[in-house]
């Protein structure tokens, strides 16, 4: 029982990072209909920015905020400068995906050119351990969980209580009708890439904090978990991605505790396959985004 509770704790901590990244990834897809594989490379960039800031003596949480802001701008520029023009010129869904893969590889190797290919580490950022009710967390894990919860709450309020958030959901659900309402969907999309870029940056630094050592592959490797969480929750559905992230994190950690860490990914993806067999559009199935993905 103790093992179960402890592994649940690890799963929640891991799921929080996955959810942080997956929500950004899925919102980006839902609003712009772009499966942005560059997202992983931008997470790596955030992790390296955080590393550079730590080296300059900046506090790790300040470094996370700065990296989130920097990746937010990079993400908006990526959309405005590369993705949106391609979509305007009629490049198909798969074509855009290939371009994002290419852009991601370019970013990765730019990082290698500047920072090298060696593994690096944030050092001891875990902090002291806190235990209660059988759960054991490090303070950094608790802060990451708190940040994730705060971000999810803020995102929920943005999407449901503000005209901008409703406009984002409207653009995601039906861009043509959104434009007919007078919504500048291009600006809404820019803002969405800015916000989701910040989530990507925060997730990149959070991942680096929770990893002993990492290299330039950290983001793309983690991207598969975020895609799994997004698909599990229902692609384009932010609440689905939150839940999906938690499920992927918990299942992989609990499975690792009871079997071997070597199999944890297999268990997480087995759950994904099982859920999709029962609910092909994911847990939070909703029409628009799933239909667009199916059409693509």
């Amino acid at each position: 029982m103790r093992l179960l509770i402890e592994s649940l704790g690890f799963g929640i901590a891991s799921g929080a990072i996955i959810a942080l990244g997956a929500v950004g990834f899925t919102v980006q897809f839902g609003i712009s209909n772009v499966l942005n594989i560059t997202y992983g490379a931008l997470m790596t960039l955030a992790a390296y920015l955080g590393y550079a800031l730590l080296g300059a003596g900046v506090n790790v949480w300040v470094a996370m905020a700065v990296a989130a802001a920097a990746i937010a701008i990079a993400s908006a520029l990526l959309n405005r400068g590369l993705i949106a023009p391609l979509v305007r010129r009629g490049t198909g869904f798969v074509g855009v995906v290939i371009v994002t893969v290419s852009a991601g590889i370019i970013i990765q190797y730019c990082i290698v050119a500047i920072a090298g290919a060696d593994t690096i580490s944030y050092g001891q950022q875990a902090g002291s351990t806190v235990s209660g009710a059988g759960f054991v967390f490090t303070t950094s894990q608790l802060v990451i969980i708190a940040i994730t919860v705060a971000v999810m709450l803020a995102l929920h309020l943005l999407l449901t209580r503000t005209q901008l958030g409703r406009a984002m959901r409207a653009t995601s659900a039906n861009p043509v009708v959104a434009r007919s309402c007078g919504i500048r969907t291009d600006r809404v999309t820019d803002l969405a890439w800015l916000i989701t870029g910040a989530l990507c940056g925060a997730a990149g630094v959070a991942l680096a904090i929770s990893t002993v050592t990492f290299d330039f592959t950290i983001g793309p490797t983690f991207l598969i978990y975020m895609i799994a969480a997004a698909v599990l929750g229902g692609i384009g559905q932010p609440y689905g991605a939150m839940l999906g992230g938690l499920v992927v994190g918990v299942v992989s950690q609990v499975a690792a505790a009871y079997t071997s860490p070597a199999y944890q990914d297999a268990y997480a993806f087995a759950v994904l396959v099982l859920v999709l067999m029962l609910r092909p559009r994911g847990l939070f199935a909703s029409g628009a985004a799933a239909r667009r993905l199916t059409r693509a």
Partner: protein
Amino acid sequence: MSSAEDARPWPARAAPARAGTAPGQPAGSGQPAAPSAPALATEGLVAGYGDVEVIRGVDLQVHAGQLVAVVGPNGAGKSTLLKAILGLARVMGGRVLADGREISGWRLDRLARLGIGYVPQTDDVFDSLRVSENLAMGGYLLGKAQRAERAEQVLAIFPPLRDKLHRYVGTMSGGERKMTAIARALMLAPRVLILDEPTAGLSAELTDAVLTEQVRALADHGHAVLLVEQKARAALRLADTAAVLVQGRVAMSAPAGEVLASPEMAEIFLGGRVPEKGAAQA
């Protein structure tokens, strides 16, 4: 819905005579009309997708308080005509005008600011939003207080929606969704409303209700309404004027009653014949 007649928020514009108004002519009661620019017009419009011309030189005018129906057989280019007007299909020649101002190729959000509303044939609502949120998005360009006031006015037109404000539109019936779509489009009190087959997928009973209680009423209250409709007879019974589109050209253009009574109608619909240019003009 007639009980809500007095509460309807449409501008108090003079409604046109129902018959005898030739397409392209300002509505009126038989008197020569003032030479005002139509609320919406196309002049020699050529449009399509890529290099393919679907619309080939269409002239059309819609005045305030007028319901103009565009009918025609499948594949005639009716929806493409609307899409060209709305900047969703490529305009290759000719012009689109609103109150005499050229708006060819304008984006939909810019057209909305100009007072041109649009209800697509399908995918006409925000499925994953509640009815109240659909209305809020319809009034996106309004301030908060104005939006709330306008929503009250629109709900007076569509009382059944009042009890469903918190329902997600994706869970509603076809008729309720269509009602929501039109209500959403009315939030900005558009001067021109463009409706692409508003009865698509609706039962015969609902078709009558949508066309008479909603579409016709819009024109009666001063909106310029351009209606594309596959159910030609139902549309022609209610429209002021009509244009019959065949193979991207206006094959017949006349007061709706005349088009309905024309023996050429059946031939056009069954055989896709295109009359000589101007032969069937009113």
